[in-house]
């Protein structure tokens, strides 16, 4: 009997050690190498990355009208609790003014903060991991050009066990794939660009797919539509199935992304209205690429 207890105790201990090791944050880039990643960075290009990434949708300071004051604090309500996206303005104390490109790259591609802890996947690094280092460098240059905002966002309010940040490490083992996309030479450059925008910075699947009880995207229903994070609305199915959206032509999608208007003259509302304000500022070729890629998805009813 005593031996059984010892064995059980040892097994539990081993599990705890294994869990701790498996859940360790793994930044993609070593901080010591920061200077190598710092070279270049084009703020004008970075503005386009910022637009397609939709950063301000979550990070903008609420209750004021300037979309470029990224002081954080907006309440993102989810089934797991409330997230309060942080200050990403260049303020050196409360924002990310002391960040290097390597820090932004680790945050976006591996969901790890400069002090080595996990970010919750409310930051959609499951998509951002596909961003190129060049885009991240440009984005950093742009973020550095924005106004400094002081003040910090409140701490997240999450239900147990989601409140245990280390647990995100186990989540990542299941849901976070390898960083980067490999170009498909059998497809057109436009399709490859569209895939990059949709699957990378645009992070379309994050809202337009259903999630399982742990908040991971259900792979077989990727892009088949899902509830909005607050659960009040529904992000439509983007695959070319026989439903309303699925019947849109490539041109219909391009026009909707540029104007916010559907082919029948209705206006896209909800969260998408804010995204359209961003997407309408992209080059025509990027909206065409997004449409090209969406039309190539496998239809899901």
């Amino acid at each position: 009997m005593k031996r059984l207890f010892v064995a059980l105790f040892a097994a539990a201990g081993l599990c705890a050690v294994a869990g701790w090791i498996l859940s360790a944050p793994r930044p993609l880039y070593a901080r010591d190498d920061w200077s190598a990643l710092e070279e270049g960075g084009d703020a004008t290009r970075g503005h386009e990355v910022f637009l397609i990434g939709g950063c301000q949708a979550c990070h903008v300071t609420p209750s004021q009208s300037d979309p470029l004051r990224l002081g954080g604090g907006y309440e993102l309500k989810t089934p797991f609790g409330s997230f309060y996206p942080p200050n990403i303005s260049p303020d050196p104390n409360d924002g990310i003014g002391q960040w290097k490109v390597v820090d932004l790259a680790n945050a976006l591609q591996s969901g790890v903060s400069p002090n080595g802890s996990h970010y919750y996947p409310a930051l959609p690094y499951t998509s951002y991991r596909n961003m190129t280092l060049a885009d991240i460098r440009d984005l950093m240059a742009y973020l550095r050009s924005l106004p400094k905002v002081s003040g910090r966002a409140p701490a997240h309010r999450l239900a147990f066990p989601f409140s245990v940040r280390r647990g995100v490490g186990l989540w990542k083992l299941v849901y976070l794939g390898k960083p980067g996309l490999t170009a498909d030479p059998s497809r057109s450059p436009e399709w490859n660009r569209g895939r990059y925008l949709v699957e990378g910075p645009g992070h379309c699947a994050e809202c337009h797919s259903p999630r399982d009880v742990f908040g991971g995207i259900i792979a077989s229903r990727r892009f088949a539509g899902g509830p909005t994070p607050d659960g009040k609305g529904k992000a439509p199915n983007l695959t070319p199935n026989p439903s309303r959206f699925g019947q849109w032509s490539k041109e219909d999608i391009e026009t909707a992304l540029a104007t916010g208007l559907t082919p029948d003259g209705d206006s896209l509302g909800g969260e998408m209205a804010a995204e359209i304000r961003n997407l309408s500022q992209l080059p025509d070729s990027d909206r065409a690429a997004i449409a090209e890629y969406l039309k190539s998805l496998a239809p899901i009813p």
Partner: protein
Amino acid sequence: MKRTFFVIGLAALGGAALAQSDPIAERQGLMKANAKAAQAVVAMLKGAPFDLATVQASLKTFLNAAQKGPNLFPDDSKTGEGTHALPAIWENKADFIAHFAKLGDDSTALLGSIKDEASFKSQIPDLFKDCGACHGTYRAKLE
């Protein structure tokens, strides 16, 4: 017989009066007209032949909605058959009304400044931001 006609007449009058005092139906009618007007304009953006008269008719439709809209959201029309109006409208009435004013001003400006296909294509997309700006905040999502 005469009385029957009288009663039917009264009922018809009553029905008409009722229809007119149904702000939900009326504002939805305006929005449907807007959608139809926008549809014609969007088709031109996608390659349908440019027609200045159609563009102007659409702009006048938007202007009409912008002028009548503010009076069609009385306090007793927060809920009702088929409405997608969000409570935020009545919590931020001044901001909500300002969206109509902007739509009206912008439509009026474009009635003067759109003269040909080139000015149409460069100027009209901005107007549609007015639609999204209001719908994003004040209308429940579709579906």
